């Protein structure tokens, strides 16, 4: 198939960017979207034009490194990561617009690459259980009801790709933070720090200049891992609980 690509090109963090159009022929429907970009880059290199920078690593949908907005949708038309999107989801002759994640908290570094360090700092603020190595009791000391374990797991599948922020009309990171709050809050191990965790993490996401959540739901709709929207309500519940305890 033949396609036309409109790709955001930006030299560096402080440079102006613009959309550049490229034509690609002989694209196989079995290629992944990133493999299609590889083909573009090989072509550009041979034409002595700098290849398009984009983040990617595992290419199996789990590391969370890749992610671009394709025709206005984070990760494109399928509910999966960009690396697991295949060209068979497009038609011969399509024009495809490729843009980086857009948020002040995720500044563009080059072309389609953004800096998502803000997510790490949200985790630093409290997204953990303080369990120094060697202090653990036997793994069976604390049975966990399966429904709780399953709910914790559903939330824990977050890969930190940032699609939720990219898709949110407010550029809010609420789903990301809520996923971690829910994951740890559902488990007995997460209880001692539950009240302070949510407050610290929410404060950090505000400090990072993410927008506020207005429960629109685009985040969960584009999440490649299907993090449920109700984790945000869980976060709000925990937050109300913490405020009630005078934390915050």
């Amino acid at each position: 198939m033949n396609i036309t690509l409109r790709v955001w090109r930006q030299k560096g963090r402080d440079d102006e960017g613009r959309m550049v159009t490229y034509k690609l022929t002989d694209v196989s429907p079995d290629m992944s979207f990133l493999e299609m970009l590889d083909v573009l880059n090989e072509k550009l290199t041979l034409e002595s034009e700098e290849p398009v920078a984009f983040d990617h690593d595992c290419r199996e949908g789990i590391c969370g490194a890749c992610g671009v907005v394709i025709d206005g949708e984070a990760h494109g038309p399928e509910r999966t990561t960009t690396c697991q999107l295949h060209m068979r989801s497009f038609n011969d002759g399509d024009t495809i617009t490729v843009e980086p994640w857009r948020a002040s908290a995720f500044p563009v570094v080059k072309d389609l690459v953004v800096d998502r360090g803000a997510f790490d700092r949200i985790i630093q603020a409290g997204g953990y259980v303080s369990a120094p190595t060697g202090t653990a009791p036997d793994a069976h000391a604390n049975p966990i009801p399966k429904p709780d374990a399953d709910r914790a797991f559903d939330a824990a599948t977050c890969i930190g790709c940032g699609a939720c922020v990219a898709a949110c009309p407010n550029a809010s990171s609420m789903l990301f933070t809520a996923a971690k709050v829910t994951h740890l809050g559902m488990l007995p191990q997460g209880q001692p720090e539950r009240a302070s965790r949510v407050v610290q993490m929410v404060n950090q996401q505000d400090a990072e200049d993410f927008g506020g959540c207005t429960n629109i739901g685009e985040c969960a709709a584009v999440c490649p891992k299907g993090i449920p929207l109700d984790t945000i309500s869980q976060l709000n519940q925990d937050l109300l609980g913490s405020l009630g305890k005078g934390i915050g």
Partner: protein
Amino acid sequence: MAVTGAILVLYLIAHMYGNLKVFSGQEAFDGYAHNLRVLGTPLLPEHGFLWLARLILLASVLIHIYAAVSLWLRARRARPASQRYQVTKRVHRTYSSYTMRWGGVLIALFTIFHILHLTVNVISPGGASDSPYERLVNGFQPEFWFVTLFYVAAVIAVGFHLRHGIWSGLATLGVNQANRQPKMNAVATGLSLILTVGFLLPPLAVTFGLVS
């Protein structure tokens, strides 16, 4: 946002109940309006309850607007105009969630007009009156179709605002759970529909001559 929104929703329900009294005739309608003024007496002075309610409502509206504006500003800071997407696509979001901000502005403007029109009666198409019933009937006469039209448009905007607002308020208050979502949606849609229709009926009834 959610708490003040909830207060305003409760108020709207009461307001609609009052409005619908119009179908019971002038006496019932005016009587209801009068009762509001003397509610709580002698424990409260005359108009005491009314002013208390107005104070709470005003505070709610102001806080609601303040919260909305700060959210709006935060969103603009989080993704400034220079960083907008060239192509955007709605994936899941409802139309009503789109209308929250400009819809909110429209509703605020309408509320001011509405108070000037039917409460203070400064704006009085069709003639001022001491009877709330007459103000209503006068204001929505067929020749003032544009008043009715504006009113209808505003009420529909309120409906949309409520559709997302109720859903969002419930979620913010921590009600949202996967298995409750159908119910939450039903509550949000149902309540906003009832309120929209409830508020549309009296003026339309006047305009189309069912109440005079």
